[in-house]
């Protein structure tokens, strides 16, 4: 059993993830101004992919608690902020999150939200967490998800050929989302909604047309709240939650196709056709890249223990399929403890890979050193593993192969520049 408390991260981040890109929603943080900035930028990759036409993240407002408010309370400020947001943005609902300061000063956020909600006739959900207190990230996310389900989702007849995706944090450049969309399209199954994070009020009211919930991204502990939200939603709608190991790598993608196809009652011929097509795509990728990657050596290197359990079976499979020789694993244990798990929880998946232990001396000679995190001055043979967002499906597989290909090319080009030293005889000829 994990001895790490589940109370990690900030509940305001959890709220942000539930609100996501929902069009009808606003987020008000009862907090100092800086908290809003940090929460807004924490999922900075969202903004990095901010291309024209893409969904906008739900706007975040802060009540701007300051030092004097710690003495006199900031309820009036929160009320003013809520009124200002309602009058300017006309959201259909508002999430109100609180920072840890509010937990200490004891503002009655729920009462303020209730008052404004009755005054203006829109739902205002006061999340009962304060920053890292009262459950932190997971509790904040769960509470936000439940509020939405209780307020807008109704049971229905579950007719139709639609599914709900749960656990997609960001659709843009998301391998898993792209893979699922492609496969469901081949199966003639429509995605009713991506919940939470992308669903309007109207879409939430029509979730009852779905026949199943497909849980995504369940490989990582950070996504645990999505499992609980999916469960809760499934109970409300009386539809099954399909939980399958994520399609990371070739074999798991094939397994995903088989299991999900079966649970969604996909017609045999259609299923076989999609399996064959996907298999071919994987094989085409292997054919393209094997020339450059076969017989290259690799070492898995952790300069410190990972912060979360990291599952790298897909990497071992990738190496096997491309002919890369995995020489071993090198783990440097420091005094810094993992963030969200125990030492055993993070080391166990690494030991299960079955690689021999090696030391740092093996690193310079390896063609690839797979590691986590991006080092500022990493040598050319270092590859930063995509372990938070692993390479799902075909495109993820291809992009990872491309990453190794580029690393291999870089080493090849730079090694070719080293000339043999001239002998005295050569010099005379040049002169």
């Amino acid at each position, binding site marked *: 059993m994990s001895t790490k408390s589940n109370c990690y991260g900030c509940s305001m981040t959890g709220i942000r993830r539930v609100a996501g890109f929902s069009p009808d929603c606003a987020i008000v943080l009862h907090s100092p101004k*800086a908290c809003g900035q940090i929460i807004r930028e924490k999922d900075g990759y969202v903004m990095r992919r901010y291309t024209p036409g893409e969904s906008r993240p739900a706007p975040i407002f802060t009540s701007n608690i*300051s030092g004097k408010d710690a003495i006199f309370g900031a309820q009036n400020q929160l009320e003013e902020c809520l009124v200002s947001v309602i009058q300017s943005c006309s959201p259909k609902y508002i999430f109100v999150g609180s920072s840890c300061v509010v937990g200490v000063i004891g503002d009655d956020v729920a009462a303020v939200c209730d008052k404004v909600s009755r005054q203006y006739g829109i739902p205002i959900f006061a999340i009962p967490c304060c*920053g890292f207190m009262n459950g932190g990230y997971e509790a904040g996310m769960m509470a936000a998800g439940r509020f939405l389900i209780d307020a807008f989702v109704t049971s229905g007849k579950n007719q139709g050929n639609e599914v709900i995706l749960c656990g997609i944090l960001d659709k843009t450049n998301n391998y898993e989302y792209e893979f699922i969309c492609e496969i469901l399209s081949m199966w003639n199954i429509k995605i009713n909604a991506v919940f939470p994070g992308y669903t309007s009020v109207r879409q939430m009211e029509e979730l009852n047309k779905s026949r199943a919930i497909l849980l995504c991204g369940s490989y990582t502990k950070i996504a645990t709240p999505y499992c609980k939200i999916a469960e809760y939603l499934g109970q409300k709608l009386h539809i099954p939650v399909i939980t399958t190991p994520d399609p990371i790598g070739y074999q798991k993608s094939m397994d995903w196709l088989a299991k999900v196809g079966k649970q969604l009652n996909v017609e045999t011929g259609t299923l076989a056709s999609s399996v064959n097509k996907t298999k071919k795509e994987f094989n085409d990728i292997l054919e393209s890249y094997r020339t450059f990657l076969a017989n290259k050596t690799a070492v898995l290197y952790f300069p410190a223990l990972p912060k979360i359990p990291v599952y790298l079976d897909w990497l071992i499979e990738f190496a096997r399929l491309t002919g890369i020789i995995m020489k071993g694993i090198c783990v440097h244990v420091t005094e810094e403890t993992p963030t969200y798990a125990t030492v055993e929880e993070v080391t166990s998946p690494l030991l299960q890979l079955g690689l021999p232990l090696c030391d740092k001396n093996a690193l310079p000679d390896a063609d690839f050193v797979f590691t986590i995190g991006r080092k500022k001055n990493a040598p050319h043979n270092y590859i930063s593993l995509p372990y938070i967002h692993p390479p799902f499906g075909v495109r993820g597989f291809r992009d990872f192969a491309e990453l190794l290909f580029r690393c291999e090319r870089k080493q090849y080009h730079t090694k070719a520049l080293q000339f043999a030293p001239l002998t005295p005889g050569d010099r005379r000829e040049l002169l």
Partner: protein
Amino acid sequence: MNNKYMSVHCENNHCALTGATSFFCAIKDAAVLINGSRFCFKQMLHYLEKSFAEPVRPRLFCTELQEESIIFGTENLLERELKKIKDRRNPSVLFIQNNCAASLIGDDIAAIAQRFNFSCPVIVLDSGGLEGGFYEGWRQAARAFFQAVPINKTPPRQRYINVVGVSDSLFNFTNDKKEIAALLQAGGIHTVNFVGSAMTLDSLQQLRSAALNVVICPELGKELAEFLYEKYRIPYLLTLPPYGLEGSERWLLQIMEALHCSDPEKQSVCEFFAEQKKEIKTETGKLRKIFGDLWISEINLAGSYSAVYGIGEALRTELANYETMNLFLYDDGPDYLFLANTKQYQRHRNFDPQMIGKHKDWILFSSSAEHAQMVQQTKQDKNNFCCIAYPCFDSAVFQPYMGINGCRNLLRFLWQCYIDNLRN
């Protein structure tokens, strides 16, 4: 809408914890203990690791507050971390900061730290979002340091200055710092300290050997300069940062004037800049022959007032010809920055994408946050954006903006925008 609740701020928009730690980490071998939650610590750490060239993690410690600490206090957590610091590090100075929640608990941090008998100075500070943003945190940290650590009296040396109000966490400061140093060298001026960057306790003890404190970023350094004048009678100079050639020349001459440099020395600097201007004029002349005079219909700048005013003035007086210039200023500037020709600018308090893009050829100097709003609004992503502040996530910046090379960099951007507009 009342924008005070919603600001996509392009300043260093983290809380005071980050600002204060940024100051402390700039002191060699300083150790910093954050009395706060792990989440706050990690967000701060991510930010500092991006901006500091040297690893800062080994010098940072965190008590990782849990809920029960709010009720029972943080003494045991502090003791645990202070013991680690005592055992593992020999800090030159130890800073202990409370985040928001911890600062409300009321633990006597100084007394707890005293039990460990550190040989170095120990400075305690309440920090976090309640105290404000990055700039407030930096200011408080600087003040706390100079209040706690007396600076030895040293006779001031005439051509020596301190550069005050800088930080490695300021956007593009690493490149701008080299330009500032080069400018000072051109004027024969020596720097004792960059207060806020690459400091040591020894160099800070020489602070009073400077004849002048020159404030680069008044958001950081004005209050500190006033404090140092009050305490140590070190005169200070507040002026626009050195953007543009004429701006850099003016900046340097103001410093030399304050240092009572001789006329021949100032003349030499003027000749140096005259040479630089001649070179740039020759290069832009070639472009003018092909493309005509540079013209940008609409220039927009958003950010903290020193950068916006500094770049704005450089654009107005020497770098560009334009129809409209919008300045989006997130804070009030000090009086000295009140520009004489304010009719040349449209000044606004908060960034509003609706006010931009009235002309086909508009350009934007801001952080990536404002740029993202413009891309969303116009559904276009043209090459008309120059990133001058954090957050920066859609630009690669390798060149300074200040000084002579900074001037070239800004000119390159302006001319490229102009040429692109001509072609489209």
